[in-house]
């Protein structure tokens, strides 16, 4: 089984799907000859041609809106939004059009599109306010849209294939910091990872940490930091934010009785609020401590300077400190 980076696994998933099914195509800014600003479609142009590897004008609403039409008429488009920070011009097309197409037509029309969007910041990203944002809370709110964000290369390939084959629109969020920092074994064979299932990355008994993307990485580091202090943290990779794997979340909380949610987005009304509410509603009597959210500050950032970025985004040390407080509660 070859070992590869997250970015390579994403590229491989698209490559295999385009080989498998000629209806599959990619479109977006710079996806063609350049192969994408991160290289996710590197070599596709030469292999599959300009019609299936479509360089679009610089217009995000066009990228998603035309993909809706392409999907209606028999293609399976993978639309790339170059940075998730640029997704807002397409917000209406995603929320009001793609996600509502099936419901508003009473099931008559579907919208099998995948929207890939690199997201997230941090001191190694140097993206500043407009190349670092976490956008999952806006989109996880929308019925009719699936929202996925992988952590391991194995999942990246399997989940992206599942997204491409999904008959409904999927927003596939890729954390930029994981692109080249995470390596893992990726099977050669054709496989999918089901959308809607979380993964227990570390089993534990003291408390449960729910996270995804880069914050899952930080949470796993934090769990190791406190492991020597008789704090045995369970760390769960949510992977799919919608539909959310509520069963796995509740099962873990019922075992540990304590829950933390870690996310990189601003804290207020972020994804952790929903996880927290679900736990409070469905597992109230299993709780032996307050539900804790660890998230970024409620300022309109991510800031560019390393010092500011570090002060803005949670890290393993901050998560570990919160875990110690919760364990002692």
């Amino acid at each position, binding site marked *: 089984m070859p070992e590869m980076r997250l970015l390579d696994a994403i590229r491989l998933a698209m490559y295999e799907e385009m080989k498998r099914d000629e209806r599959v195509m990619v479109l977006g800014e710079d996806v063609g000859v350049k192969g994408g600003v991160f290289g996710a479609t590197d070599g596709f142009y030469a292999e599959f041609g300009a019609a299936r590897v479509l360089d679009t004008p610089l217009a995000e609403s066009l990228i998603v809106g035309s993909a809706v039409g392409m999907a209606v008429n028999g293609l399976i488009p993978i639309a790339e939004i170059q940075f998730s920070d640029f997704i807002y011009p397409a917000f209406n097309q995603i929320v009001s059009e793609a996600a509502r197409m099936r419901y508003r037509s009473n099931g008559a029309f579907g919208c099998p599109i995948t929207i890939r969007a690199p997201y997230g910041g941090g001191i190694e990203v140097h993206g500043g306010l407009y190349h670092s944002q976490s956008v999952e809370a806006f989109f996880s709110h929308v019925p009719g849209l699936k929202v996925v964000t992988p952590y391991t290369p194995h999942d990246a390939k399997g989940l992206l294939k599942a997204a491409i084959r999904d008959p409904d629109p999927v927003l596939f969020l890729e954390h930029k910091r994981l692109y080249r920092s995470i*390596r893992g074994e990726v099977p050669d064979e054709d496989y999918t990872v089901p959308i809607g299932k979380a993964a227990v990355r*570390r089993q534990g008994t003291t408390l449960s940490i729910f996270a995804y993307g880069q914050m899952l990485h930080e949470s*796993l580091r934090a769990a190791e930091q406190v492991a020597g202090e008789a704090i045995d943290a369970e760390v769960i990779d949510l992977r799919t934010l919608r539909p959310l794997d509520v069963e796995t979340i509740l099962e873990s909380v019922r075992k540990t009785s304590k829950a933390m949610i870690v996310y990189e987005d601003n804290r207020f009304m972020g994804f952790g609020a929903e996880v927290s509410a679900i736990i409070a509603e*469905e597992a109230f*009597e299993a709780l*032996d401590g307050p539900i804790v959210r660890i998230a970024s500050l409620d300022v309109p950032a991510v800031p560019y300077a390393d010092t500011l970025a570090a002060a803005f985004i949670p890290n393993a040390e901050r998560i570990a400190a919160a875990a110690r407080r919760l364990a*002692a*509660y």
Partner: protein
Amino acid sequence: MPVEIKLPQLGESIHEGTIARWLKKPGDRVEKYESLVEITTDKVNVEMPSPFAGVLTEQLVAEGETRPVGSPIALIETGAVGVVVVGAPAAQTVHAVPGPAGSDESPPARPAPPAVTAGLASAAASVPAKTAGGARLSPLVRKLAEEHQVPAAVLETLPGTGAGGRITKEDLLQYLAGLGTAAPAPPQAGDEVVKLSPIRRSIGQRMAQSKREIPHAYGVIEVDMSAVVAWREAHKDAWRRDGIPLTYTAFFVRAACEALRVFPIVNASWSDEGIVLHRAIHIGIGIAIDDGLVVPVIHNADQASLAGVARGLEDLSRRARAGRLGLEDIQGGTFTITNPGVFGSIWSMPIIVPGQAAILATDAIVKRAVVRDDAIAIRPMMHLGLSFDHRIFDGAVAVQFMNRMKQWFEEFRDGR
């Protein structure tokens, strides 16, 4: 019967309308959809068509007067039988239609889970939300207290180890465990008494004796089983062809023997005369059988190869399950290994077999994310848990002993 015509809902957020002009007089014939009355609102001004054909019998509202939406404004004699109400709000006309009458009363598609509020109410009735000291009780502690009928007075005096003296789940469980030995709940109607089998009685006596006499202490470490898992995967089929089932337990026994040789204090017994260090290494293996647990012994386990241990284990477990163990098979153990991992346990603290210094629990091998060279890697990990007699040795030895095993596992190579 006359039909009542109501002031229609002429637009979103329109709540009232003014009769500007009647276009029909009482006694006039009105065709269906023929204009009946001019209505003005603050949003639109319209001629209202009659929803029915008939004769206008009465104007109920004079010109210039304003009425809320839904107010009757006229009566029309249609010649139809029965009372029909038409006009706004529009949805009301639905009731004249066969089919989903009353459908607005249908329950939502996904009803809220029932009985939650009832449960909360009963818990709140008998368990205080706070202790006398003012520390908050968590939902879980309140629920446990409710289930076990812990009196409020007890909760108020129970010492808490949580932040600010809060009573934690563990505090309450510990309290309840103490209660259990002191005063078991008497059998009540509907309870069932299962007679003690000889083996159950024996296990009960020996375990209680052990916990009574031996001050147990515990240590747990984590082992990366990659090397062992890989080697076993590569060889188990070949071994099976030779008739040897290559179980993980065989590896555990071999590793324990290596460590016991280095730390003879772990292969020992407590006596009033002193600590007896055993020269021979006889390893007991906990084996679950139908009605309990037996602990047959591999004698001189340190003299056997991996294949020898595997063969011995196979023989013992087969005979244990068939009930054919002899007295000599279960006597003379100097150290015991129990493997709750086969049932999926990931963290175990077993009870020491009386007469021995320690018992080792091997837990399930689980794939986990661990840090290797500052990167996250997925590895098959296992906990080793040692329960030991703190009279015989201390925690440092316990951990060193397990670390010796850990080293053996993690550096496992062909030919051992």
